[in-house]
């Protein structure tokens, strides 16, 4: 095994990077891959709660870097998937406790017996972002179909090109097919046309994502969730499979009409 290191980044905060990392890592592990995710958001750790592992943390990334523990000791095993691990961020330190070369070293140590290392980048384009992309073999940029998120994604794509880490692949997260249909939300085609990079997945807005993070159980585990399906498809594409894009046309029909009538939509 020689792991592929994939960094998930976005520029803007709150577009769903951590959700994407938790879901993609879980989906890859469900496919039988050995996966380690690293929370790169030093001081604002969150991947642990989204994955439901917050009570199991003993050591963190900075403990590894500063030699207080072995790499294996900081790897927290998932509750359900034996080949899924998390290396949590330090909560009481800042991003300067980690350097790009530390990240390269840790990822290289993980490579021999791992299939995928997934790095969750902090928002922004400063030190934490540089750390997160340092070891990346490929980068996924997450955006929402919204002006501020697309603008920041474009900046990040430019910086990745300058760092010769590009071209990244794009995840369009939280697309609302009804708004797109009414031409009140940028469509996936609009966003792709603006950013000019390759698309790897479109994740529809789905309340199951919030329910999943409330429970600490990523949505990919829910067979019925549309967002879960979208993330499972992206995980397949990361493994080199060709998977057709989901049909995201608004669901019409009687049930939808009843829900609208009942004020649920």
């Amino acid at each position, binding site marked *: 095994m020689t792991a592929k290191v994939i960094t998930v980044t976005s520029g803007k905060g709150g577009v769903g990077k951590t959700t994407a990392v938790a879901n993609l890592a879980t989906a890859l592990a469900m496919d039988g891959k050995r996966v380690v995710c690293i929370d790169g958001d030093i001081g604002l750790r969150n991947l642990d709660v989204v994955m439901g592992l917050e009570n199991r943390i003993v050591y963190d990334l900075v403990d590894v870097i500063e030699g207080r523990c072995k790499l294996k000791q900081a790897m927290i095993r998932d509750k359900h998937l034996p080949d899924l691990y998390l290396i949590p961020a330090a909560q009481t330190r800042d991003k300067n406790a980690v350097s790009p070369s530390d990240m390269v070293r840790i990822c290289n140590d993980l490579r021999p017996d791992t299939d995928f290392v997934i790095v969750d980048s902090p928002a922004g384009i400063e030190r934490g972002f540089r750390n997160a992309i340092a070891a990346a073999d490929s980068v996924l940029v997450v955006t929402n179909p919204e002006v501020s998120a697309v603008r920041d994604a474009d900046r990040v794509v430019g910086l990745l090109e300058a760092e010769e880490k590009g071209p990244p692949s794009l995840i369009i997260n939280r697309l609302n097919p009804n708004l797109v249909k009414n031409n009140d939300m940028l469509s996936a085609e609009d966003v792709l046309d*603006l950013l000019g990079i390759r698309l790897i997945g479109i994740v529809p807005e789905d309340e199951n994502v919030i329910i999943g993070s409330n429970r600490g159980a990523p949505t990919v585990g829910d067979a019925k969730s549309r967002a879960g399906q979208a993330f499972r498809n992206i995980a397949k594409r990361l493994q080199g499979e060709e998977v057709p894009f989901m049909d995201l046309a608004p669901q019409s029909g009687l049930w939808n009409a009843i829900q609208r009538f009942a004020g649920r939509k």
Partner: protein
Amino acid sequence: MGFFSRKRSATSAKERLQLVLVHDRTDLTPGQLDELKDDLLKAISKYIEIDPEAVRIELEKDGREQRLVADIPLKHMPRHRAG
């Protein structure tokens, strides 16, 4: 604006982003682009007469490539009579 004439918001989002991204990528403000146009026109006018009203100079985007596109019509001038 009436209900029927209202431009849907996704259209303005796309148009606004197209402009913003071009300026972000080139690190050129709209003001600087105007200065560039003026300088360009001044330089060209030293050699040939142009019609400033019909000039069109814009930054355009093609995938992730940027280009400055100029369409500068020359003023129609009667030919000098020989002799």
